[in-house]
C-alpha cells in the first residue's frame, strides 16, 4: 500500500516529526511504500541543515535525510510556508536576493500542488501535526 505523509510541526518543538518518522520506518519495514513526505506549516523547519541539537539528542533532519536516501523518499518542503519562515534553497535565495540558504541534503522546495498530488496518488494520507 502507498502512504502519503504530511508533517505540520517543527522539529524538537513538537513530537509530530518524530512520530511521523517512526511511522514511516515501520510502514517501510512492513513492505508498504512511502513515495513522498510533505512538510507544511512549521514542518518546513525540519529541513534546515543549520540545526545543532545537543549531542545526546537525536538529529531529526539527519534521520530524515538518511531514510530518504535509503528508500528514495521525496522530501518536499512547501515553498509558500518556507518563504514565511526563512527556509530557502540556493535557487530561492538567489531569486529573493538573500545572501544565504539553509535547506538540508535530501529535501527539496516545491509547491502545494505536490501535497494534492500526493493525496491523489497514494492510498492513505497520514497527517502528523498539532
Amino acid at each position: 500500500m502507498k502512504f502519503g505523509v504530511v508533517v505540520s510541526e517543527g522539529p524538537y518543538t513538537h513530537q509530530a516529526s518524530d512520530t511521523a518518522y517512526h511511522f514511516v520506518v515501520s510502514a517501510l519495514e512492513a513492505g508498504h511504500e512511502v513515495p513522498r513526505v510533505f512538510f507544511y506549516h512549521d514542518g518546513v523547519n525540519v529541513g534546515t541543515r543549520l540545526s545543532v541539537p545537543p549531542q545526546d539528542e537525536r538529529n531529526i533532519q539527519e534521520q530524515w535525510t538518511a531514510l530518504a536516501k535509503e528508500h528514495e523518499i521525496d522530501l518536499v518542503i512547501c515553498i509558500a510556508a518556507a518563504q514565511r519562515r526563512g527556509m530557502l534553497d540556493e535557487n530561492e535565495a538567489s531569486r529573493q536576493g538573500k545572501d544565504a540558504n539553509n535547506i538540508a541534503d535530501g529535501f527539496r522546495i516545491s509547491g502545494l500542488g505536490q501535497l494534492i498530488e500526493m493525496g491523489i496518488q497514494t492510498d492513505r494520507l497520514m497527517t502528523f501535526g498539532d
Partner: protein
Amino acid sequence: MSTLHTVNKSPFTNQSLLSCIAHAKAGDAVLMIEDGVYGAPAGTAVADALAARAGEVSIYVLGPDLAARGLDAGRILDGVNAVDYAGFVDLAAKHDRAVAWL
C-alpha cells in the same frame, strides 16, 4: 468502509479527544498518540466519556508514547488496546481513511 482517527492532545487540556469520539462512527477506530495517550488510564476525569464509546468504536493507544510518559499499561481502561508503531501502520492500512484530530 471505516476510519482511523488519531488524537495527539491531552484530553485534560484540549477538547480534541471529545470532538473525535463525538464524530467517530460505529466500526471506526480511535488511536491515542503523543500527549493523547493521557486519555487512556482508568479513573480520570475523562475516562467515562471514552468508555461510553469503547463498545462500538475500537480504542487504541500507542504503547511507546504510554511508556515515555510513565503510564503503567496495567492501569489503562478496559477495552483500550496498546499497539506499537507497526500496529499503528496496520491500523492505517486496515481502515479506509485516516483523520487526524489536531
